[in-house]
């Protein structure tokens, strides 16, 4: 449990800025490796944690010291109750927080807060009280991965474009792939938090957890293998399409297998969670506690969005009208290009419209992931 200051018995908190344990009472500081908890058995495979249960989303929030949790770090709900003291397996390693809470707030501000479309209420919620640091469990695996694919692509044949089919079967050896070991985080989100740089990994010491929350790995071996296969498939798929000599390559069908080599390494990775509610819905923005990478989609004011789209339509229409006048009255001899202009504009507009709609659909999908209740439902579905 909590280690106390040897000078004044005050509570020690890990400070990411100095990478030291600091006493909140007298200001003394110590290296985590130098501090020894007299109650702790150094050779034990276990460490003690305090587990809280969220009455709203059902998540387990784990703290390692005597700090009481006041709200759920996943959905922001205050309906959280102390459940038990639990002994957990010690992870093999930990990447300590390197980004401080103030830095995390600054990174979010830099990303989103200059945007006039982000509602004022959301900007006001970006306070230290709404940000919590959590160590998220990951498994670092070495794996052999095998995949067989049928792909399609488009090839020019004279003036025509033909669809062609391709077959690929291959194997790849992968090293140090991080796989999220917690069901509460969607794998798509945890993947976006990467990269984590393993060079900063320290041997696990529970003193690094002081002042932070943690989440222990709750996946079984089979679930880890499924997640690892999906993770490796995404990496493989990104590479196999480059091997096809065609445009607009798609994987039409695939089968794949993974073999996780001996002894996956259990590591705690640092993540800041900014949780807030807007328009009755919970949102979670994540910040990589090692690199400061911000992951999530901020809600926007619907009115601003309609105004921007409407304004842009009017503006482009005005520009297009000028072009029409130039064509109609043959300014600069443009009317000879009239038919070409119509065909060209239609093709251009179709391309741009497809890109725009696909992009907006993707952003809405990301927004759904950011709404943590949806993450939870997704996780529940995966558990079933």
């Amino acid at each position, binding site marked *: 449990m909590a280690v106390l200051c040897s000078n004044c018995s005050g509570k020690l908190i890990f400070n990411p800025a100095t990478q030291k344990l600091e006493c909140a009472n007298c200001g003394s500081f110590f290296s985590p490796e130098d501090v020894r908890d007299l109650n702790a058995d150094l050779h034990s495979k276990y460490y003690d944690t305090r587990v809280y249960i969220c009455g709203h989303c059902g998540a387990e929030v784990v703290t390692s010291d005597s700090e009481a949790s006041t709200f759920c770090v996943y959905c922001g709900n205050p309906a959280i109750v102390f459940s038990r003291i639990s002994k957990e397996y010690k992870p093999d390693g930990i990447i300590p927080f390197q980004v401080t809470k103030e830095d995390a707030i600054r990174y979010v501000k830099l990303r*989103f807060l200059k*945007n006039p*479309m*982000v509602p004022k209420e959301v900007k006001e919620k970006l306070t230290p009280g709404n940000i919590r640091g959590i160590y998220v469990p990951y*498994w670092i695996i070495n794996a*052999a991965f*095998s995949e*067989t694919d*049928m792909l399609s692509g488009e090839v020019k044949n004279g003036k025509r474009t033909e669809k062609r*089919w*391709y*077959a*690929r*079967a*291959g194997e*790849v*050896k992968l*090293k140090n*792939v991080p796989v999220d070991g917690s069901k509460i985080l969607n794998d798509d989100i945890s*993947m*976006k*938090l*990467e*990269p984590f740089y393993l060079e900063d990994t320290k041997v696990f010491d529970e003193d690094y957890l002081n002042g932070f929350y943690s989440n222990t790995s*709750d996946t*079984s071996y089979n*679930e880890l293998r499924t997640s690892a296969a999906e993770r490796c498939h*995404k*990496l*493989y798929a*990104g*590479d*196999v399409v480059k*091997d096809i000599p065609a445009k607009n390559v798609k994987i039409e*069908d695939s089968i794949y*297998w993974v073999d996780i080599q*001996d002894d996956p390494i*259990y590591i705690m990775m640092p993540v800041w969670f900014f949780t807030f509610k807007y328009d009755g819905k919970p949102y979670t923005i994540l910040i990589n506690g090692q690199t400061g990478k911000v*992951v*999530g*989609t*901020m809600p*926007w004011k619907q009115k601003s*969005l309609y105004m*921007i789209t409407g304004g*842009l*339509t009017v503006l*482009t*229409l005005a520009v*297009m009208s000028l072009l*029409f006048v130039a064509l109609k009255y043959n300014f600069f001899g443009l009317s000879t290009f009239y038919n070409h202009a119509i065909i060209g*504009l239609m093709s251009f*507009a179709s391309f*741009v*419209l497809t890109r*725009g*709609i696909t*992009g907006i659909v993707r*952003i809405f999908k*990301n927004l759904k992931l950011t709404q943590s209740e949806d993450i939870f439902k997704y996780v529940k579905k995966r558990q079933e």
Partner: protein
Amino acid sequence: MTQNQIFILYAITAFVWVFTSVSIAIFITYRILEKYNNYGDSSCKLDDYSMSGIKYKRSNDNVVPEEKSYHFNVFGENPYEDRVHSIPEQLLKNSEKKDQED
């Protein structure tokens, strides 16, 4: 050119113009949302985790879709089926817990 033809010509032009304007506006709106509201798309590639890259056992261009079943039958068996590995205790504990819940 008759009145009807002129009308049709104007209608087509107006449609093209409005369609293009709306398309461009939607595209710019997407770019604004992408730049200012959406963050953190995955940037990891296979090269980040593999030194050797993919070793292809089969690499055929211009196949016909009907070959799929043949292709999947030939390469469609788990190559790692018989391999046994040691499993960390945490994962074993989680598996037991899951079995009990089931």
